[in-house]
């Protein structure tokens, strides 16, 4: 084989492997930015309540200087010393009557101001993390919250954003989500080959479409299993009630029905024609079930759904994109390669079957 042909025919496979390997490495090793993992207790009660925050990945040069509870316009700064050791930052608060009764029996976001040795500030937070009970009210009506400039002039080194609930598992975006992209693209490719079979009548195209659907199902099953583990860790259930999950389950069943249909037909021409038509019609249904239906629904957990058009800025910052997009392309290429191998094996099997007959 000429070296040019070799490169032209194999380069996409090498590209897929390189993209997956680099995004795997980057996705695992790039650190997470600092953040608050959790606070204790979840409910503050009694006068001068103490709050402990578990901070994560804070560099040694940064020290906790202030704790702040905020809910709408109401803010409470910590009183007295801040103790910090072993990733635990604790301080006490003295909520009083100065900000009205509204200040109690509500959820507060916890902020921590960190300062480095160059007196630069940066904030980490955990939204709606603590409940302030009315028993915290010490009755004092003088405001204790000094006017403060909540400056943020420092920045962390590059890293993945630290999001509440997700924490380190945000990395799964580079591994779990590309499974679904690979599945959808392989199904799209299979539709293209099915259309080509129907217009040109070459059985090889039908074998290609079939291999693509089978490997797409593999990607879908891996996507379900990995998503289930991720959902248990973040949303608290192995299979949460979510339109996207139900849509995926139904969509996969339609493709399993395809496998069943195909296995019952013995005549190659009839099998190719029927499964091509089935594959073409089921694809738009599948896309509707996993993309459009969850978007129309308002109670979905997945990002990019529930009325939003796509990935919001909040969902995907630049560091994430830098790893996520190459990962999607890489996994699509690797899965396409696996499908190509399956097709080539099936074609050889078909040929030898024809020889025997």
């Amino acid at each position, binding site marked *: 084989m000429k070296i040019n042909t070799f490169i032209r025919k194999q380069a996409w*496979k090498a590209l897929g*492997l390189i993209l*997956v*390997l680099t995004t*795997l*490495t980057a996705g*695992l*090793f790039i650190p997470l930015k600092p953040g608050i993992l959790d606070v204790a207790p979840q409910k503050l009660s009694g006068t001068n309540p103490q709050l402990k925050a578990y901070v994560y990945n804070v560099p040694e040069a940064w020290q906790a200087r202030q704790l702040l509870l905020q809910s709408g316009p109401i803010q409470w700064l910590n009183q007295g010393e801040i103790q910090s050791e072993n990733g635990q930052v604790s301080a006490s608060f003295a909520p009083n009557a100065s900000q009205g009764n509204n200040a109690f029996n509500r959820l507060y976001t916890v902020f921590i101001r960190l300062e480095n040795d160059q007196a630069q500030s940066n904030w980490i937070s955990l939204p709606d993390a603590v409940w302030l009970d009315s028993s915290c009210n010490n009755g004092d009506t003088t405001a204790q919250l000094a006017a403060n400039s909540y400056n943020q002039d420092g920045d962390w080194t590059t890293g993945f954003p630290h999001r509440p609930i997700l924490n380190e598992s945000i990395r799964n975006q580079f591994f779990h989500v590309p499974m679904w992209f690979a599945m959808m693209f392989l199904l799209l490719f299979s539709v293209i080959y099915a259309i080509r079979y129907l217009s040109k009548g070459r059985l090889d195209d039908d074998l290609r479409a079939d291999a693509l659907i089978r490997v797409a199902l593999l990607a879908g099953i891996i996507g379900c299993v990995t998503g289930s583990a991720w959902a248990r860790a973040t949303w608290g259930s192995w299979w949460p009630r979510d339109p996207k999950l139900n849509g995926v389950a139904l969509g996969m069943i339609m493709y399993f029905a395809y496998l069943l249909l195909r296995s019952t037909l013995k005549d190659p021409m009839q099998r190719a024609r029927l499964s091509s038509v089935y594959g073409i019609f089921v694809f738009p249904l599948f896309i509707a079930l996993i993309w459009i239906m969850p978007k129309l629904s308002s109670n979905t957990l997945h990002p990019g759904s529930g009325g939003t058009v796509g990935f919001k800025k909040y969902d995907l910052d630049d560091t994430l994109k830098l790893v996520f997009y190459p990962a999607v392309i890489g996994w699509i290429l*690797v899965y396409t*390669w*696996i499908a190509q*191998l399956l097709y*080539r*094996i099936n074609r*050889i099997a078909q*040929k030898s079957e024809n020889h025997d007959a």
Partner: protein
Amino acid sequence: MMPNLLQSLSEAAVGFLVSEAKFNATATVLVLIFLGIALYLIRLDRKISAIEKEDPS
């Protein structure tokens, strides 16, 4: 000279593996598993190519 270089390389590798509370050891295992599967895919591809050449029908 050579053993010294090897020793310092191995020390650097061990230092990498045990840092981040040994998370790097897990990440390295994952990367190696992927490399193994990737090499296997390449071998499988070449084997199938060989069979295709044998019987170019």
